[in-house]
């Protein structure tokens, strides 16, 4: 019995040692000045430049400390933030993406800061509008990005194929893909099957805008898409697939295009893919070939393209330091010096004062050139379908069912339509 007591005593001592270490750290953290917790996802370069911006801000504001809480990918980020929010322990700044409407209930409306602590006058009106959900300003755009087709310029030059024009109609585009097919070696396809990609609601969203039937209207909580529209989208790619303009479904499914490592374009399997402009530098860094951007087909006539914030800075409604936090966000998006540090990592700055300070790498220049040309072919962004993540995931599944021939495009169109209705009602 004596020895049992000893073991238990030992357990208690070691436990209290570990506990003690923990509480000491906690006390040290709590004793300081105002602390802003900034949760975002990103890696390497983004962390480094964000830290530089933090240091600059802290040196200017001695009473404030900013603690970054970094996760690698958006998936990790949201699992962590969700859990923290459920535990009543959310960070002050939460980086958001297209799913911002789903978080509306936990975010602080920023309208009362607009024009004072947050200088909205220099921010593009379209960027302010996209952060406004249900009539309230909930998110500040981190920078602007645009969907684009990206092609492997070096590959086309190697095989002696003509380079694509920046703007084409769908007919011209199909003819161009046919030309490419004749030039490319076997096993290399003109274009990636962009419906199998994880962010597949973007090409589909583009298609619905091109047809004048946008996916969602938040004001009326309705969709203009019909089963027929969705069917036509599926048939468009079925035609490409049949003619070998995109890879067969099992090859295409091997490349999720969520990242350079899973990209058919980087792997040299296709000549054309799609991305958001802020991804270009990451893709370019993963290959020795030169990449370049063109518009989606038909944008010039329909203005179906759009500019979107690549991310938002939002504030947790339970934040204890909302004033200090919004000041810091204002610094991140508007301050010229911060802009020089942050560059276009979170999108091309949406603030005129930040752009004026601009620093441009060759890739940034390519993006700016593209935006110059494609900018006039844009119209305001469509509202995000509620339950964004589920929409992407299920659309992906339905698209694949059609691609693998499990269901017809007509059935697929009907199911996509029903999915939209269900998610809007959810």
């Amino acid at each position, binding site marked *: 019995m004596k*020895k049992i007591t000893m073991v238990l005593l030992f357990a208690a001592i*070691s436990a209290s040692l*570990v506990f003690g270490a923990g509480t000491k750290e906690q006390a040290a953290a709590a004793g300081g000045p105002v602390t802003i917790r900034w949760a975002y996802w990103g890696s390497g370069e983004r962390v480094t430049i964000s*830290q530089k911006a933090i240091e600059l801000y802290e040196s200017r504001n001695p009473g404030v400390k900013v603690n970054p809480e970094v996760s690698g*990918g*958006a998936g990790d980020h949201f*699992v962590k933030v969700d859990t923290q929010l459920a535990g009543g322990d959310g960070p002050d700044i939460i980086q958001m993406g297209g799913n911002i409407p789903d978080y509306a209930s936990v975010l602080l409306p920023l309208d009362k800061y607009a024009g004072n602590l947050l200088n909205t006058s220099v921010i593009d009106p379209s960027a302010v509008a996209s952060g406004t959900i249900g009539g309230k300003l909930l998110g500040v755009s981190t920078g602007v990005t645009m969907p684009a087709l990206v092609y492997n310029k070096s590959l086309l030059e190697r095989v002696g194929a003509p380079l694509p024009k920046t703007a084409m109609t769908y007919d011209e585009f199909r003819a161009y893909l046919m030309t490419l097919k004749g030039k490319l070696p076997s096993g290399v396809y003109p274009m990636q099957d962009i419906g199998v990609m994880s962010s597949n609601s973007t090409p589909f969203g583009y298609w619905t805008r091109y047809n004048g039937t946008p996916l969602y209207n938040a004001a009326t909580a309705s969709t203009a898409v019909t089963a027929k529209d969705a069917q036509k989208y599926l048939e468009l790619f079925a035609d490409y697939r049949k003619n070998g303009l995109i890879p067969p479904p099992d090859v295409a499914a091997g490349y999720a295009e969520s*990242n350079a490592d899973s990209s058919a374009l980087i792997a040299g399997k296709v000549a054309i893919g799609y991305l958001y402009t802020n991804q270009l530098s*990451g893709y370019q860094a*993963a290959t020795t070939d030169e990449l370049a951007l063109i518009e989606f087909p038909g944008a010039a006539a329909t203005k179906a393209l759009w500019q979107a914030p690549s991310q938002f800075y939002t504030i947790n409604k339970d934040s204890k330091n909302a004033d200090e936090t919004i000041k810091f966000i204002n610094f991140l998006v508007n301050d010229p010096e911060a802009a020089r540090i942050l560059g276009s990592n979170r999108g091309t700055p949406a603030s005129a004062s930040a752009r004026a300070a601009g620093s441009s790498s060759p890739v940034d220049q390519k993006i700016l050139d593209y935006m110059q040309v494609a900018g006039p072919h844009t119209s305001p962004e469509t509202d995000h379908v509620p339950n964004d993540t589920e929409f992407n995931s299920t659309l992906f599944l339905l698209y694949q069912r059609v691609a693998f021939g499990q269901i017809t495009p007509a059935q697929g169109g009907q199911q996509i339509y029903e999915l939209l209705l269900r998610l809007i009602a959810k």
Partner: protein
Amino acid sequence: MQAKKTLASRLLLNAFIIALGLGMLYPILWLIGASFKPSNMIFTDAGIWPKVFTAQNYREGWKGIGIVGFDTFFKNSFIICLLSAFANAVFCSLTAYAFARLKFVGKKFWFAVMMVTLMLPSHVTTIPRYIMFRNFGWINTFLPIIIPKFFATDAFFIFLLVQFIRGLPRDIDESALIDGCSKFGIYTRIILPLTVPALITTLLFSFLWTWDDFFNQLLYLTSPNRYTVPMGLRLFLDSSGMSSWGPMFAMSVLSLIPAFTLFFSLQKYFVRGIATTGIKG
């Protein structure tokens, strides 16, 4: 003749083990090769041996995420894993001894309860666990990861040790009991020495699995200077396409080294004979 035959069969056996091993290790060899390729060639150069050889990935990777380097991540992982491994070995074997050898009321019930704790997918207990540890004030400390191990919450190891202890001949501890040995005496002087291979297994697995346990570390460690190796590795992968694969591979290779070393130095305890000395003595 006899000696010649054994030499031949021995060589054959070695050759077989090496051939099978090489087949299984191909992906690892590719990983090591890739860690020495320049970032923009990793996905275009298919071979194991790099066409262009660089140590840049290691230099860059070691810096981690710019503000905190991998030296910190390794240090944190070591603290968490060593404490966890030690705690698991001690407290799971105590519990296992009770379940395997002692008589008490409700034994079957508690054993069933213990097994059930293994069966609930952990993702659904994430939120209540988080709320609980938050109320304890443990967020952003190592406590939510280490402390449960001091309370034998890892039923896998209890069950493992139970099976090993039940496999031991019962007459030895009964005779010790007759000799006037206390229960605790039997545990320390007979059971523990006889279950060394199982204890080593427990130490090893606890270390490795805690090393790998990304999900809990992600949830409970919030400031970068508390981050661990798997968190550091995930930070190289960014969903917006800015991934640094080269450094990620390089640090993945490095992260195998502690576990490999630990395994290599502990495997010598898997030597036939340890278990039987003392029984038939």
